[in-house]
């Protein structure tokens, strides 16, 4: 909402400077967004006297002027054809910024002649498009006067943000009323006198809605005929007001409707009465009915839209936009003025569906003062008669408007209890009185009548806000929130703690955390298992962001592609966030996922980097599992990762077949091809929600450390077996041979080649024996070794290599 300071002065008497006004507006909830003060911008542009204008010695089109600025005489080279001796013009000195040409003036030489400052045109000052020459002012204009003052541009324009509850401030009068209630200035009374009609309106009004309709889309309609008018341009004062807030003057009748809308927050419409056929009937549109609106567009209406029709057709979309066919023109001689009330929801629905933004819609969908229809009509009639002449009829009307009267109670303790600030009962009463609430002291509470222009007020908390915003939010003392415990309790649960730990753990492994969008192109989702239609957006911001991601990997892979395109090929990225499988609350799963592409280390004087392989991401998964307190040691590693992984180079970490903790491996080359990303890329996804939570009572004590003082023994074995026997199985068999004695088993060599046979491999194991009760004898060692051999041979189907 924009207005100028002088417009505000039409309704409010005040002396305070602009800064104080601005602060007051913000402090009562009408936040100042911008103040445009042309007088300040153009402060240096002042009236001057051209003492002498002579031909430039070396340029036909230039003149050398001696200019009296009021404080000194300077020489200016000027290219304007109208620069002449004795004229009064506008001068801008060196060092000044010229807004129309985006230029900072500097002393210079033009074709060898010194020039200081500039004689300017209106366009150069940015005040109009006028550029036929420099400004010429009347001879008697005082030298040194600010041009902005002379031209009436010294009227700052204030733009305020209007919150949805402040429908009362959508007119300059309403802003003045709120400022006055807030103790700033004195409100001037509106002229609400009644214009007597001198005949019966030839056009009547009838609301055509079912009585059962609640609320009525149009609950009140006032009309008035004015005959014998002459529509021409509106007077300068009205044009200035409208132009100051960026509206284009059109004709007196149109300007009146705009002016009343912005001045009083009261939208109006004026029909050319001679173009109407019969009487006015606000009604629902018929499905498919069309109307040509004032914006030149033809709109197709539905039975939920309220139209203002005559006997033959809709003449306007009620409360949204008037119709073109019955609009006023220069030739209009008889008019029918409309002042009506529309239901906010109906207006909002129609406006949104037809995508019409209008000043009327903006006000009606927020709520227009239901007790200001008659006054609005009188003011409009008076303006029409003042500007266009004519003779008014009696007012015709139908409907009584919505029931708006309500009373709200404010307990006297409530401002303190809710607002945390002590305000005296006297002050509460005075504030509410100034705001129009007619407060009555009712013992423990104050009973108020909500004014017609405050439709947002419907509870005690609203009244607390009213008292507080006038008293000043800045006066609320800051009070510390009482501590619940001397030392704060933990703020996170185990799942939240795991998310935090996962991020730090992966970053400690040299991975870089990314945060990517939760949505992605559906084509990418399809590469990673696809998504259900229920989580594909109906109104995506672009087709590239239309589906919720079923996995964190595709966005990370796409990020890898973007980084590759920038020339970065060694990429370790991770993200810990949600993936989505349905539109239900439990369809969102928390996952830690990462990718590694390129090489670890990169090229270096000590050797080339090592290309990442699946064991890097397997290490990520196991380390991460350990870091978040998962069962890293007991989880099984198996095959069967989802289809976006390489079928032969991927694995699953699980706790039994039903609880999948993580998947990892090389990403499927076809997936990378489809996303145009250079491979190979390793990836992992760890399902944090699937990690079992500790059971039973919380316990911080660790199990006691059991170490043996007896000599440990290591024994090596090599077995030949089928190449596809999983190593994990071999290790488990070796360890299982004697759980008490064997503390560790590791694989230190894998060999495949002709010497061990086609399709076979040699697996070399090292087994560590840690006796607890005494040093092992050779016999005992041999006995354990035999058990290891037997167990491994049995499990793997292999044989000991001898």
């Amino acid at each position: 909402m924009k207005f100028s300071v002088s417009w505000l002065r039409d309704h409010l008497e005040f002396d305070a400077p602009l800064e104080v006004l601005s602060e007051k507006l913000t402090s009562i909830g009408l936040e100042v967004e911008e103040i445009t003060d042309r007088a300040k911008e153009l402060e240096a542009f002042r009236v001057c006297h051209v003492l002498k204008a002579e031909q430039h010695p070396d340029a036909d089109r230039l003149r050398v002027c001696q200019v009296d600025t009021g404080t000194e005489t300077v020489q200016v080279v000027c290219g304007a054809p109208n620069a002449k001796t004795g004229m009064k013009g506008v001068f801008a000195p060196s060092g000044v910024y010229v807004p129309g040409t985006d230029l900072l003036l500097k002393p210079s030489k033009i074709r060898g002649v010194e020039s200081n400052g500039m004689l300017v045109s209106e366009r150069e000052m940015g005040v109009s498009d006028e550029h036929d020459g420099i400004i010429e002012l009347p001879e008697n204009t005082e030298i040194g006067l600010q041009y902005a003052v002379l031209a009436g541009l010294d009227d700052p324009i204030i733009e305020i943000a209007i919150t949805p509850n402040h429908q009362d401030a959508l007119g300059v009068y309403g802003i003045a009323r709120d400022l006055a209630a807030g103790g700033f200035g004195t409100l001037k009374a509106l002229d609400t006198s009644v214009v007597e009609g001198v005949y019966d309106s030839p056009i009547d009004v009838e609301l055509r809605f079912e009585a059962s309709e609640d609320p009525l889309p149009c609950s009140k309609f006032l009309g008035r005929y004015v005959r014998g008018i002459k529509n021409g341009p509106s007077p300068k004062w009205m044009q200035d007001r409208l132009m100051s807030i960026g509206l284009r003057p059109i004709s007196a009748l149109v300007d009146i409707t705009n002016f009343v809308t912005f001045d009083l927050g009261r939208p109006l419409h004026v029909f050319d009465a001679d173009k109407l056929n019969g009487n006015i009937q606000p009604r629902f549109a018929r499905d498919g009915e069309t109307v040509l609106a004032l914006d030149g567009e033809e709109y197709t209406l539905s039975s939920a839209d309220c139209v203002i029709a005559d006997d033959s057709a809709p003449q306007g979309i009620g409360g949204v936009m008037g119709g073109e066919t019955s609009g006023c023109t220069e030739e209009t001689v008889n008019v029918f003025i409309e002042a009506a009330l529309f239901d906010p929801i109906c207006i909002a629905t129609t406006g949104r569906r037809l995508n019409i933004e209008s000043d009327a819609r903006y006000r009606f969908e927020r709520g227009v003062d239901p007790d200001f229809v008659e006054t609005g009509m009188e003011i409009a009639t008076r303006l029409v008669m003042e500007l266009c002449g004519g003779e008014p009829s009696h007012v015709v009307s139908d409907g009584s408007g919505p029931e708006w009267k309500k009373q709200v109670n404010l307990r006297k303790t409530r401002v303190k209890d809710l607002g945390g600030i002590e305000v005296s009962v006297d002050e509460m009463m005075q504030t509410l009185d100034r705001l129009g609430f007619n407060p009555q002291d009712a013992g423990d509470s104050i009973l108020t009548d909500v004014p017609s222009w405050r439709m947002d007020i419907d509870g005690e908390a609203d009244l607390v806000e009213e008292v507080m915003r006038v008293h000043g939010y800045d006066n609320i003392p800051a009070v510390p929130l009482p501590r619940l415990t001397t030392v704060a309790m933990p703020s996170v649960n185990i799942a939240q703690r795991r998310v935090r730990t996962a991020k730090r753990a992966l970053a400690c492994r040299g991975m870089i955390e990314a945060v990517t969008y939760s949505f992605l192109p559906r084509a990418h989702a399809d590469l990673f298992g696809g998504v259900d239609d229920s989580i594909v957006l109906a109104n995506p911001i672009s087709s590239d962001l239309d589906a919720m991601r079923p996995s964190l990997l595709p966005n990370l892979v796409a990020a890898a592609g973007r980084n590759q395109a920038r020339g970065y090929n060694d990429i370790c990225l991770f993200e810990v966030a949600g993936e989505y499988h349905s539109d239900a609350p439990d369809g969102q799963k928390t996952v830690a996922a990462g990718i590694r592409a390129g090489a670890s280390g990169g090229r270096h004087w000590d050797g080339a980097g090592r290309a990442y392989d699946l064991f890097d991401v397997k290490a990520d998964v196991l380390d991460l599992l350990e870091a978040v307190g998962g069962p890293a040691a007991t989880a099984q590693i198996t095959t069967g990762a989802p289809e976006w992984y390489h079928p032969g180079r991927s694995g699953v970490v699980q706790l039994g077949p039903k609880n999948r903790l993580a998947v990892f491996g090389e990403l499927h080359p076809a997936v990378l091809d489809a996303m145009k990303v250079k491979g190979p890329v390793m990836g992992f996804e760890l399902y944090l929600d699937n990690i079992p939570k500790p059971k039973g009572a919380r316990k911080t004590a660790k199990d006691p450390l059991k170490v043996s003082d007896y000599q440990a023994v290591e024994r090596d074995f090599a077995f030949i077996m089928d190449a596809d026997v999983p190593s994990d199985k071999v290790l488990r068999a070796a360890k299982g041979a004697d759980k008490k004695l064997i503390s560790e088993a590791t694989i230190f060599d894998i060999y495949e080649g002709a010497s061990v046979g086609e399709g076979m491999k040699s697996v070399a194991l090292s087994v560590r024996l840690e006796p607890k009760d005494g040093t092992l004898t050779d016999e005992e060692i041999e006995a354990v070794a035999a058990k290891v051999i037997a167990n491994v041979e049995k499990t793997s189907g292999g044989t000991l290599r001898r």
Partner: protein
Amino acid sequence: MQDIETLESELLSEINNANDLDTLEAVRISALGKKGRVSLMMRGLGKMSPDERQVVAPKLNNLKQSITVAIDNAKAALNLAAMQARLSSERVDVTLPVRPEMQGRIHPISQVMDEITEIFADMGFTIAEGPDVEDDFHNFTALNIPPEHPARQMHDTFYFPEKEDGSRQLLRTHTSSVQVRTMQSVKPPHRIVVPGRTYRSDSDQTHTPMFNQIEGLVIDKTSHMGHLKGVLKEFCRAFFEVDDVEMRFRPSYFPFTEPSAEMDIRCTFAGDHIKIGEGDDWMEILGCGMVNPKVLAHCGIDPNEYQGFAWGMGIDRIAMLKYGIPDLRAFFDSDLRWLKHYGFVPMDVPTIGGGLSR
């Protein structure tokens, strides 16, 4: 006994002449080995008379002692010389770069989220979370935003397809939906903060369709707007790590709070940098207010018994403010150069005791 003295001078001369450890070892064996000359003479003592022995034995012992010492000294000298020779040949260019290692980083959003939750944890808040895909009730209706409320137009909501029953799920436009979920499922009092992803259909220089918010909620029987101000003051002071932050509360409007306010903090713009807490400008950082009694009622809490306040702010935005990050869109672009530059090293875990940032 001339023999002993001669032998001593001979051996000492051999030791002196030994230029390397092998030669020295040969001298040692020839003197003190089993068949060495000194050893043989020692053995001869047994055949002597007691009187003779009494004279010769000490001399022989002295000889052995002196030779042993001489060899040890010579050995040490040779070792030292050998080490010096080796060290003078062993040189590397210490200016060569180290072997490259990947440097991990924490995203500014995670870091700032940790900082914020650390501060609120100290004030007795716990963290609550909820789903990104929400229903109309939790995101709008329960928060006093009925279907045709003009406030719904302020939220450019992402919707999912309409279902058979006419309902449609949406992406939450604010974390306030979690307020509702918490109040519905847990009995008051409440002190929660809710960090999370939020979505609005908006994309330009300063808006991304996904962004991060943190929401706070306090519900009990006595907390009022003064407490709200107190909490936010402490938060700003702690978060921006300054002694004091001047704040400005302005009346505003949110359907879910009444009274409502927006909070600005004092700041100054110096070139690319924003200084918080001083200067002559104001920067809006959050919206807040007392929870609207209608919201409490929607969530099954008696507004005559309980009251409280809520606030919400953009995590991305205050991360940009605190750490001087210019462009919001870059947060979600995963440019390695950006992540390395604006990211945080993993061990920089923000804590109240240890400090939020370096």
